[in-house]
């Protein structure tokens, strides 16, 4: 049936699958005395089943954007729609069933087993005392399989390496069973192999589970290779496009000051200037 679709229909169908969309979004901090705008006129759309990388220099406002998208912080202006519903209309519980997070902060208690920690992802669905139903356990085990953690299932979290712990946190977010997973710098503190491993895992999860996965990262080379689409924050603008288009448009050249490194279009990598 999809052979004779008009372009309009394709656009309409894509719109159907927009998970998160911002319009004229302006982010920053507001106090009684002054308003400091960090970025404005942000128009981005995240589609179902996409892996999206958010990149930008240090201090450009990646965290502020993520904090705003996750409703921790209010936007200064513009709108955010999550599954076509304004973000501010979501109750805490409804939001927990639509969006899950992987944060940079350390776990408070590492005295939980891997299974117990991942099971906490089912909290929005469990009863008042947090008992797991059979359905919950099925979903938890599925998340464990999808992240290849079966061998570590009964280990305690303080026994895990940073890379393993990051996988556990991703599995926890999967178990929360949301349309959108947002990760704040999931590759910090990891070695090169595990950086690639985690991002590759995210790519596969987006494809297999049809969830939208948005992550911020400094691994621009890896993101270019793995992401379906990228959000690039520069001093002047916030641009969202496929990695190929972004390279062609020469966006990555504007990412950093030009004195030390430059972007090589042919390889899609940054190089130190000789």
């Amino acid at each position, binding site marked *: 049936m999809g052979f004779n679709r008009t372009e309009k229909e394709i656009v309409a169908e894509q719109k159907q699958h927009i998970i998160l969309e911002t319009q004229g979004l302006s982010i920053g901090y507001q106090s009684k005395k002054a308003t400091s705008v960090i970025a404005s006129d942000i128009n981005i759309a995240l589609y179902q089943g996409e892996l999206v990388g958010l990149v930008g220099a240090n201090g450009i406002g990646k965290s502020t954007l993520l904090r705003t998208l996750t409703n*921790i912080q209010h936007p200064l202006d513009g709108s955010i729609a999550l599954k076509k519903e304004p973000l501010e209309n979501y109750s*805490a519980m409804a*939001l927990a069933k639509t969006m899950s997070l992987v944060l940079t*902060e350390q776990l408070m*208690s590492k005295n939980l087993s891997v299974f*117990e920690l991942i099971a*906490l992802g089912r909290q*929005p669905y*469990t009863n008042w005392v947090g008992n797991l139903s059979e359905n919950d356990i099925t979903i938890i085990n599925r998340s464990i399989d999808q992240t290849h953690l079966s061998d570590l299932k009964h280990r305690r979290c303080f026994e895990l390496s940073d890379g393993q712990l990051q996988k556990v946190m991703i599995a926890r977010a999967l178990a929360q069973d949301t349309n959108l997973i947002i990760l704040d710098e999931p590759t910090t503190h990891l070695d090169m192999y595990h950086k690639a491993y985690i991002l590759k895992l995210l790519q596969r999860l987006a494809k297999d589970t049809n969830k939208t996965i948005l992550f911020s990262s400094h691994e621009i080379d890896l993101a270019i290779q793995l992401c379906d689409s990228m959000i690039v924050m520069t001093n002047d603008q916030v641009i969202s496009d496929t990695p190929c288009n972004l390279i062609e448009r020469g966006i990555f050249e504007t990412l950093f000051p030009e004195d030390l490194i430059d972007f090589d279009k042919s390889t899609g990598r940054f190089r130190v200037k000789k």
Partner: protein
Amino acid sequence: MKTRYTYTFLTLSVVLVLCFFANVSLGSVGIPIEEVFQSILGTSTNESWQYIIRDYRLPKAFTAILVGSGLGISGLLMQTLFRNPLAGPFVLGISSGASLGVALVILGASIFGGAFSALLVSKWSIVIAASLGSFLVLLAVLLVSSKVRDTMAILIIGLMFGSITAAVVSVLSYFSSAEQLQQYIFWGFGSLGNLSWNELFIFFGIYLLGLILTSLSIKALNTLLLGENYAKSLGLNIKQSRLIIIIATSLLAGTITAFAGPIAFIGLAIPHMTRQLFHTSNHKILLPAVFLFGAIIMLICDSIAQLPTSDYTLPINAITSLIGAPVVVWLLVRKRKMIF
């Protein structure tokens, strides 16, 4: 997962029952074990023994169970809420508030005048003063903490209120007579044996309310193990849960302090001992475990404080610290790792 802990729970329950009977059997008056059971059932022929068992030792043993379990649970609540292994039931200033109330009644009696003071220094007035003191300090902490978002700030505010009340108490002590000071210090030693059955029922009622609120918080407590931001992302209403946890703690620790004095150490140590024993941070398992463990330790401490067969009774506060502190040190040295 359930079966893994079943045997430990069963063992602890048996130990609790044994400790209970040992506690009731031991005391300054030697009573044969079968007479102890007869007295409990009310069929003993020796009236003084029956009186000692039913009106002194039994309420004391029940008080020990409530005090030990209640302090352990409120310590656990505070350690999880404040993400701090050094937190105890009194970090919110509950015990300093109670001390202030009691100090005002005992030490301040001379300020209020002679005839009035005789009226003031009765047992109930001390209980009421302690409750009122801890309630007022807690109210102040809650009011200030509703203005701050950070849980850590509440911890510091609690400590500051503690310092203020301690300062007021030392000013009061400076102007007090030696006799009044002694009375105040005796209150500070803690005591389990002063409760009648009626008082025990009131104690139990408030304790039960705290326990119910705690049970309602199990899920929130487990979510808080991930940290506040994760908890929020899981749909937890942080402010509401925080309030319920703080109220539960103050009900438990507040009444215990009012009826038994400021009992040191149990609230801090019991959750740690339980974590070492059960290897988990899951509150669904920790809460009943802390309940059993706290009750057992308190019964043992009380039995030792009685110095069986002698006429002396040591301050319960000294025993809890003397026994508890080395046990925690030993556990940590042996395991070489603080599980939290």
